């Protein structure tokens, strides 16, 4: 029997990026805010310190910073005619557990979506005609212009290193010429480039493209953000993604917000608390709080005036489903909303191998690279290509960690003396161009509750039904072909093309860019939350994160997640608190 705790103004479920931002914004508004995090406290000098964080086995391969599948996982199938089976260990994506969430082990690649991305349905239909059957792409209900000030706010919070390509409509040389207009340049200049990205940029330029330094949450210099929080300069140590930063030079909740937030008397954090469900009253229209289990297994009821789901993109829809909030999506009828429009990212790569050039791949950072955006979104004419959307091409030098990154040329066996020789020959002399493709939403890609498998609390696991469709394969092949052209123009000894082929597999790591399931929109019949991320069904419930994306554009999601969170915080502070209730009339 859950024991009831004293009321708070706001309870935040999970304590990663979105909760840190909301915690800071809502405590500034004078509210009493409580965050519940299932994992432990962790911080730079004690938990990801320079003396021990560069441990490939421990952190990437034994997953010590990530969510344990034993405590939370999902079941997976490619389509509804298969039986979903548990994801028994992490693979394709790496959600986190602990304070800071995946915000501590990301690479730091921080983009804005294109203006056309926010109106993907209307924009593409206007240009190319009706979308294929079964493609359930939707407009977001917010525009790029709505979000521009909040992108700016997140970028300045983080200290993003980059070069503007479009300042208030004026194109800027050296930046991304396709980006939406921004009010001012990035807070920090671009990072110093390693060798391989400069070779990519040169080749791309020769082919007529406009390469630019990719926007990076790895600091190009020491930085003090608008909250007064200090970040150090990145030292190019090559242990970014899957690791946490030991010298304060990667943006994370710990390095950008927590030093200020944790000092506030009206903010409290409880760790070791796993939220089981959101409680609603008997009208079903008001959240009364959440129920959680602590580390000793005791259940508690935490009442709150405002409940905000700040957990990972999978966990938020899961909570909605197990709490019975909103109508679950049914793929056969296409009705219902919770779980609808799940999407991901489709990636491929083209590797180059040199005899004569040393790449020194171990010198790197998570968001260190040069990119081109000619093939993202609707930046190019898709007529006759048979797909919509696109992605950026970039040559990132993120790491040379040998267990993970020991490239070998085409045809090399996977073990034995030939393998060993190929590894020794190639390790210092190769690089990889990545394509980072969008994934549109389709009718048959969705989240719901599994009928068979349960978690340690007895709740049904989330069930993921997802595969790439023809749109994605065609797009990815197109991007891969473009990347191969640039690779050849880099004049290596040889090129190895790694297409994304066959069905989506949950086994190899790809990205943690899981989106959808709690999508935002203008119509409660086709979205879970309104344009302010407020639940259509329960006005004192907000749902953050990339679950809000109606489909996933061709960029990493975090920049937009940050912007949407600030946007929602503003709506809560300036509209909701003054007049609690639905912010949008359905």
């Amino acid at each position: 029997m859950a024991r009831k705790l004293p009321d708070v103004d706001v309870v935040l479920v999970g304590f990663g990026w979105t909760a840190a931002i909301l915690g800071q914004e809502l405590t500034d508004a004078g509210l009493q805010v409580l965050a519940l995090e299932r994992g432990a406290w962790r911080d730079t000098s004690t938990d990801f310190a320079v003396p021990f964080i560069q441990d490939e086995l421990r952190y990437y391969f034994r997953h010590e910073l990530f969510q344990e599948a034993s405590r939370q996982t999902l079941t997976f199938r490619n389509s509804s005619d298969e039986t979903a089976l548990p994801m028994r260990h992490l693979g394709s994506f790496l959600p986190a557990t602990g304070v800071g969430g995946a915000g501590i082990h990301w690479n730091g690649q921080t983009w804005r979506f294109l203006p056309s991305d926010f109106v993907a349905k209307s924009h593409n239909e206007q240009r190319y005609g009706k979308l294929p059957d079964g493609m359930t792409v939707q407009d977001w209900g917010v525009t790029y212009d709505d979000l521009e000030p909040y992108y700016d706010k997140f970028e300045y919070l983080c200290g993003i290193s980059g070069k503007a390509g479009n300042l208030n409509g004026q194109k800027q040389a050296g930046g991304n010429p396709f980006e939406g207009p921004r009010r001012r340049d990035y807070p920090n200049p671009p990072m110093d480039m390693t060798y391989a990205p400069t070779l990519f940029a040169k080749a791309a330029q020769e082919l007529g493209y406009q390469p630019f330094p990719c926007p990076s949450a790895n600091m190009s210099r020491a930085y003090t953000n608008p909250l007064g929080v200090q970040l150090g300069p990145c030292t190019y140590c090559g242990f970014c993604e899957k690791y946490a930063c030991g010298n304060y030079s990667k943006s994370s909740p710990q390095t950008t917000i927590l030093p200020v937030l944790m000092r506030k008397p009206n903010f409290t954090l409880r760790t070791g608390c796993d939220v089981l469900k959101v409680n609603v009253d008997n009208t079903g229209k008001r959240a009364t709080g959440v129920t959680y289990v602590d580390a000793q297994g005791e259940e508690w009821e935490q009442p709150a005036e405002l409940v905000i789901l700040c957990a990972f993109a999978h966990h938020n829809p899961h909570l909605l489903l197990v709490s019975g909030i909103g109508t679950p999506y049914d793929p056969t009828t296409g009705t219902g909303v919770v779980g609808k429009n799940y999407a991901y990212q489709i990636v491929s790569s083209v590797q180059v191998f040199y005899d004569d050039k040393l790449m020194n791949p171990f010198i790197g950072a998570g968001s260190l690279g040069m990119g081109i955006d000619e093939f993202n979104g609707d930046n190019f004419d898709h007529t006759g290509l048979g797909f919509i959307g696109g992605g950026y091409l970039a040559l990132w030098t993120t790491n040379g960690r040998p267990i993970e990154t020991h490239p070998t040329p085409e045809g090399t066996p996977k073990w034995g003396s030939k393998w060993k020789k190929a590894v020794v020959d190639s390790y210092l002399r190769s690089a990889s161009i990545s394509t980072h493709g969008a994934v549109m939403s389709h009718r048959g890609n969705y989240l719901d509750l599994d009928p068979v498998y349960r978690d340690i609390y007895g709740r049904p696991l989330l069930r993921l039904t997802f595969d790439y469709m023809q749109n994605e394969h065609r797009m990815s092949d197109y991007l891969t072909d473009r990347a191969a052209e640039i690779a050849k123009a880099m004049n290596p000894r040889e090129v190895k093309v790694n297409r994304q082929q066959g069905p989506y597999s949950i086994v190899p790591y790809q990205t943690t860019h899981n989106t959808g399931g709690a999508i935002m929109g203008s119509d409660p019949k086709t979205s879970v939350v309104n344009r302010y991320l407020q639940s259509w069904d329960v006005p004192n419930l907000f749902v953050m994160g990339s679950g809000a994306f109606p489909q996933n554009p061709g960029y990493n999601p975090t920049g937009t997640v940050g912007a949407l969170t600030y946007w929602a915080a503003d709506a809560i502070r300036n509209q909701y608190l003054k007049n609690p209730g639905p912010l949008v009339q359905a």
Partner: protein
Amino acid sequence: MSDPRLSRRQLLTAGAAISSAVATGTVDPAAARTIQGDMPWAPGAADRPRMVEPGPYRFFTPEEAAFIEAAVARLIPADDLGPGAREVGVPTFLDRQLDGPYGRGERWYMLGPWRNGTESQGYQSRLTPAQMYRFAIAAIDTHVRDKNQGKTFAQLSPDDQDKLLQSLEKGEVELRGVSGKAFFDTFLQNTVEGFFADPIYGGNQDMAAWKMIGFPGARYDYRDYVAKHGEPYPLPPVSLMGRPDWNPKG
């Protein structure tokens, strides 16, 4: 442990001063706290790595050890490029891994029912890594003995060992109760891990594998070299426990 003069307005629950980043499937008491007013810190607190103690095998039986030592030597052989997996201690690495949380599958979802899935759905066996190794090695040796006049894998010629491993890799070997291919894939992955992981885990002794490929190890600052495009990196590799140059007597 904490200096009483530090951290004034802080943890409301008394608790371990040493923070614990590792939350496993088991409950970690240090994880449950109410934190208000400050960011927790304590002098000397460090979520340090768990290093392997050298010594005899703790997990492998002598028969299993014989298989492992022979097999890793085929996966990554010694040759004129340098030592192979056996020489750098990968068998010890594997032994300690299987004897620990990884071997027990502590972070894996191990609940049933267990069904065969598609390739996209990944590992669906009931077996933990330790169990898989145990069953697979026994089954492989049985299979080998049946076809080779009672010889075990370790007693085959290197060429025949290679052939057997290739068959396992292709999924051509039927083993009772365990998938030969799943075992091979895991075994190869773990062998590469042991070969290239930090020496504190038992493999890659002397940082031999890192020296062979040119990986400088656990180094945190490359700023002086970022702009030196195409130039070789001059410093030797360093492990999480240092390198010989750290000791004044060499």
